[in-house]
């Protein structure tokens, strides 16, 4: 087999793995959008915040130490203990639930019934706020996150492909784990929304706010729950990306990666987020591999957007989105 095709296959596989990670972020968007009609731009920053909090708790950092030191002239940074990663994840989750409550209580309660675009801009404001808040709380230096996930070259795949093509594929263990976790997460979410009382209530709210309200579903509770679930998804995405490339500001930019995924897959569809993620992941890696060198490289920055843009012109609701019907 010619080298180009083998390289292409490796790129394809890596693209699939990257796509899973994109889908993971996109999933958080879809959940909130379906249940509350809010397009949550802050999802990426939530992932960053979750990862920052997780690292902070694990390392026993003093929250706001930077600020306190600056104001009081003291000099302390750590409590001096280390928390086990599992416990830290649970604590972080508690923080994310608290955040969900705060967001719902302080912001979106006051914006009920506003136009979607106003809500969207409010989440941009929220993203900025949380970015500053996270940095003040935990400091803005690049942190290493290690919760014990395997990392590095996967030996088995390397060996098998080497025997087949005389060229070993480089597939990161972390990506494989991420794929499984994403699959599990989607499974859990599907079961949750299909078979539990709260999940059904969530779908009812997504379908029709007023009808759900009239049969006794508490909108307030559902929205807090949805934001918490989205916070959980953000935490998972934050752990994956944080382990991969360190916890730093650029982590919040994964939201920008997830947006074209959403446009492609449709804002309201969980399968759409996954299929869209895979298409974008594979598409941008293959494009960079095939066309990138001809035009100067780094096409990953815009390829997804341009693809989604062209796609939307022909199908404005995305692959799996609900058809947009407009009335006067």
């Amino acid at each position, binding site marked *: 087999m010619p080298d180009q095709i083998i390289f292409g296959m490796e790129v394809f596989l890596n693209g699939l793995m990257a796509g899973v990670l994109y889908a993971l972020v996109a999933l958080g968007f879809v959940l909130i959008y379906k249940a509350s009609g809010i397009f949550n731009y802050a999802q990426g920053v939530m992932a960053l915040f979750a990862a920052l909090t997780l690292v902070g708790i694990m390392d026993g950092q003093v929250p706001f130490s930077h*600020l306190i030191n600056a104001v009081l002239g003291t000099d302390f940074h750590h409590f001096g203990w280390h928390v086990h990663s599992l416990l830290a994840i649970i604590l972080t989750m508690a923080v994310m639930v608290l955040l969900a409550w705060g967001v719902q209580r302080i912001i979106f309660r006051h914006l009920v019934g506003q136009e979607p*675009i106003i809500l969207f801009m409010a989440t941009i*404001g929220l993203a900025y706020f949380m970015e500053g808040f996270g940095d003040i709380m935990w400091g803005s230096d690049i942190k290493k996150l290690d919760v014990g996930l395997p990392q590095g070259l996967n030996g088995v795949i390397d060996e098998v492909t080497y025997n087949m093509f005389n060229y070993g594929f480089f597939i990161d263990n972390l990506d494989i784990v991420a794929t499984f976790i994403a699959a599990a997460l989607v499974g859990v979410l599907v079961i949750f929304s299909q078979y539990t009382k709260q999940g059904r209530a969530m779908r009812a709210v997504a379908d029709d706010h007023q009808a759900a309200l009239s049969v006794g579903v508490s909108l307030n509770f559902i929205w807090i729950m949805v934001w918490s679930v989205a916070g959980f998804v953000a935490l998972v995405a934050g752990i994956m990306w944080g382990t991969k490339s360190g916890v730093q500001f650029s982590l919040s930019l994964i939201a920008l990666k997830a947006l074209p995924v959403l446009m492609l897959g449709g804002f309201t569809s969980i399968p759409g987020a996954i299929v869209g993620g895979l298409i974008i992941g594979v598409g941008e890696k293959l494009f960079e591999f095939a066309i990138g060198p001809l035009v100067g490289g780094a096409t990953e*920055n815009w390829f997804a957007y341009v693809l989604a843009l062209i796609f939307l012109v022909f199908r404005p609701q995305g692959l799996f989105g609900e058809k947009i019907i407009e*009335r006067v």
Partner: protein
Amino acid sequence: MFYREAGDFKTTYVDDNQTFPIKFDRYRYYAVLAFAVAVVPFFINDYWLNAIFLPFLIYSIAAIGLNILVGYCGQVSLGTGGFMAVGAYAAYKLMTAFPDVSIFFHIIIAGGITAFVGVLFGLPSLRIKGFYLAVATLAAQFFLVWLFNRVPWFYNYSASGQISAPERTIFGHAVTGANVAPWVAYLFCLFFVIVSAIVARNLTRGSVGRKWMAIRDMDIAAEIIGVNPLTAKISAFAVSSFFVGISGALFFTVYLGAVEVGEAFGITKSFLVLFMIIIGGLGSIFGSFAGAAFLVLLPVLLKNTLVTGLGWPTDLAAHLEFMIVGGLIIVFLIAEPHGIAQLWRVTKEKLRLWPFPH
């Protein structure tokens, strides 16, 4: 007492339709203009110019441009940074290709080129709406920045990948390059600001502006009563990008002088200008100025009080600024969706009766 309409009789339609129908407003406007043109240039120094006046003036033009698109026509755009980059690079290419032509025309033409690019990226708005469109404009942002970063023709094959403005003069005074007198740069930008504001103000209250607002308020209904969505949306994109392009060109030539595209015109710039019009007031020319002034002054004030005054580290002040800006966006969206402009309007309404309660 002094701010009132009583006794200010209008006898012609022209009188009735002027921009500032209330006498006091009109004189205040003339006073501000006179102050800006005739007083400030005598006192301006490098610090005031670079820290406050130039960014304020240039962002005002960008904010007016974006406000036309978002505030008047209802098409949310996150591609402002990319369009500013188009203006900057167009100005750069023109300046280096035609060194004999006045920079004044370069900047105008750069605006025209940006308008054309804006129309190209605005075409999908006919099919895509709401935040689908907002996300789609991000395509323009990322693609344009990448283009200027990677295609050497745009930066004249310079080794650093940066572009820097050569020295150009107007009436014998340098406006770009290293030896610019503060008052020249200030007046040069001020001229563009005043013309842009007047043009924008008159466009938005004429038939074009009413078409934009009809599209904003409900596009299908507008279409039914005879507004052509194609021309309305495309013209909004064109006019908006024209202003944004001019501001990008000024930002590069007069303010920064040398530009690295990802840094100067990245997505944060898009958000910054969007925040200006949200805080200032969507659908208001005055709001564009107010928002630009606010977001230019806020970091300067924070830096002066926190870093210089209290001795905090710079990064802490920067993070705090993020929090404050984000928080303010939310507060304004909740409490006063029409921004500072609306607060100003309410104040004026109160002033008309003051000191009487009714």
